[in-house]
């Protein structure tokens, strides 16, 4: 069980800001594949992986990062602060 949070247009496409997900995936990429297999809104959110950024427990990581031990994974577009 892992907390998944979404921001900006990823949140809008998924349709919610936060959910708990039961997963057997061992990496972030694996989790994304599971989500995409579930429903079309996830396919829409993750259709262009070059536009997806990931944080594990509030630290930026690559999509091939292992999930082991992580409590929260966040998906969002490239940041546009400043």
């Amino acid at each position: 069980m892992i907390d998944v949070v979404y921001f900006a247009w990823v949140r809008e496409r998924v349709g919610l800001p936060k959910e708990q997900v039961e997963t057997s995936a061992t990496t972030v990429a694996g989790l994304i594949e599971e989500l995409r297999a579930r429903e079309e809104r996830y396919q829409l959110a993750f259709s262009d992986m070059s536009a997806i950024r990931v944080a594990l427990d509030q630290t930026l990581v690559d999509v091939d990062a292992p999930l082991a031990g992580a409590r929260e994974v966040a998906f969002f577009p490239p940041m546009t602060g400043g």
Partner: protein
Amino acid sequence: MSVRVQAEDFDMAHELAGFGGSSAGAIVTFTGIVRDTKAADLQAMEIEHYPAMTQSALEAIEADARRRWSLDDCLIVHRFGRLRPAERIMMVATASAHRADAFAAAEFLMDYLKSRAPFWKKEITRDGEVWVESKAADETALERW
């Protein structure tokens, strides 16, 4: 040295009172302002962030700047929520004995903040809402550091 994330506006004169102490000869500031884009009649800018991550991400960027340059003081203030055109979005300030350090650190803070701090901007116009897209140039800007 401080980092703040807040919905409220800030006052530059207040932020800079006493900033840098007595040893800093050079203070550089950057202020980001909601720009009234000519193209699309901007009504508001909505800034979303990732509360659990924002403060620590900004503190990490600030700590990195302090390792790289000799700074007497350093400040990051970033707002979130709905802002109107001409409102201040954020500011950074750096103080150093040397102007080159103050300038470089301020540019570094801005480059990292643009692409590595968890903020997202959405422009609200009469025609609808559009998420601001990140620029390739912002990612490229990181390579110089």
